[in-house]
């Protein structure tokens, strides 16, 4: 029997997801026995033209990590969609936009100006900024253009499954790969991770009182979390109540609160708003002023509540006066 063909591809990625595959693939011989890797840009030499030559559906599954920010990436993922029976969004960036998705809170112009014109060490009296096309002593050079915003994979192509996490722990990767190999697949659109919130499996759950109230949020900058106590009960914002479990409580084990890389629990329209609603209702404030103070104690709600999911949030990005982002 022919081995199933598997493709890996990466878009705007930090390489951490690739590292997980490398960690997984330290048992590489087992993987190679079971599947036939037909595309893996970091490790194997296949080109766009090879992919174009595949028959639609010929490749069983494509694992794609990283957010989408360039038209070339769009071209690749659309082609992979056409040729692969299944597409799996691998990791928070592909699933939700991820940390690079925070760029949707700013603009391309700002990014360029801060990097090449305003940085404290930049010496650039002529105001040179990188150009898509440039000529140096007659040699023509090209750079890719960036989209105005960062997108999650399913904003660009249809996605069958999601593997959450930044990066996904390799146990969940193994589960997914096995499910695919054994053809024991959950319904299309599933996130391959538990349905329950992280809190339910969190070792600190017992110290979280049912009638939890929060007076004010503490900053990790100036306070130290108790090594045993539920972070919320201790006054630190923890995304556990609104985040899917299954990561192995990795940050909690490092004595740090969850930032939500596994994304929201099922049926949540907007992860950040759900969390906002959940914690705000727990506030101890009972006057308008106290409510305001309580709200202000949560510095940077956008960057905290949407640390990994800004591009897929209901509001998607910061509104800026038109003309600012061309």
């Amino acid at each position: 029997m022919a081995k199933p063909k598997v493709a890996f591809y990466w878009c705007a990625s930090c390489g951490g997801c690739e590292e997980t595959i490398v960690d997984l693939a330290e048992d590489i011989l087992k993987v190679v026995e079971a599947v036939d890797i037909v595309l893996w840009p970091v490790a194997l030499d296949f080109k766009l033209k090879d992919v174009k030559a595949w028959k639609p559906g010929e490749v069983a599954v494509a694992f794609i990590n990283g957010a989408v920010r360039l038209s070339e990436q769009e071209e690749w993922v659309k082609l992979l969609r056409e040729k692969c029976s299944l597409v799996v969004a691998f990791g928070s960036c592909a699933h939700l936009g991820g940390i690079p998705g925070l760029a949707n809170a700013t603009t391309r112009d700002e990014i360029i100006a801060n990097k090449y014109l305003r940085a404290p060490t930049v010496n650039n009296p002529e105001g040179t900024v990188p150009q898509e096309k440039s000529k140096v002593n007659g040699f023509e050079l090209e750079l890719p253009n960036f989209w105005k915003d960062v997108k999650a994979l399913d904003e660009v192509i249809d996605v069958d499954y999601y593997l959450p996490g930044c990066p996904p722990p390799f146990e969940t990767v193994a589960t997914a790969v096995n499910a695919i190999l054994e053809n024991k697949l959950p319904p299309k659109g599933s996130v391959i991770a538990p349905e329950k919130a992280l809190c339910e499996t969190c070792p600190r759950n017992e110290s979280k009182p049912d009638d939890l109230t929060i007076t004010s949020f503490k900053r990790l900058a100036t306070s130290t979390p108790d090594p045993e106590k539920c972070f919320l009960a201790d006054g630190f914002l923890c995304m556990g109540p609104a985040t899917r479990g299954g990561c192995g409580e990795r940050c909690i084990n490092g004595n740090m609160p969850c930032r939500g890389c596994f994304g929201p629990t099922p049926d949540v329209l907007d992860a950040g708003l759900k969390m906002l609603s959940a914690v705000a209702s727990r506030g101890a404030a009972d006057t308008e002023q106290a409510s305001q103070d309580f709200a202000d104690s949560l510095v940077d709600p956008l960057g905290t509540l949407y640390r990994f999911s800004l591009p897929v949030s209901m509001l998607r990005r910061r509104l800026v006066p038109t003309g600012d982002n061309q």
Partner: protein
Amino acid sequence: MANEQFEPRIVGFLCRWCSYTGADLAGTSRMQYPANLAAIRVMCSGRVDPTFVVKALKDGADGVLIAGCHPGDCHYSEGNYKAMRRYPMLLNLLDQFGIECGRVRLEWISASEGERFAEVVTEFTEQLKALGPLNWQESISALCTGT
């Protein structure tokens, strides 16, 4: 930009026990106030999930009014306190999304305060006229790459 012709669209989430009745009273007493508000009756201001507010803004509202019973008078005792706590946090968040805090308003209006309801709507409409249209859908698509 403020526009003389611009008539803001306001979605009002009104608690059925007090504010909605207050609005009714304003109507039946033929008080004068702008017709910009589309009222949605909710069980309690505490039931207004921030998601509703954001959805309204996203779907074309220029402003959102949340109105509930005065503190202490909530039919479910605590509901309006929940609303009170969520409200400033939601405004802080919307501000980071580039949506002015003047577009969302929380007011306590009892069943007998028809006049107050009319005042709130009048004032809020003026405020939104000054802020101009939100046009979230159009503005955002100009800032995103089409696919």
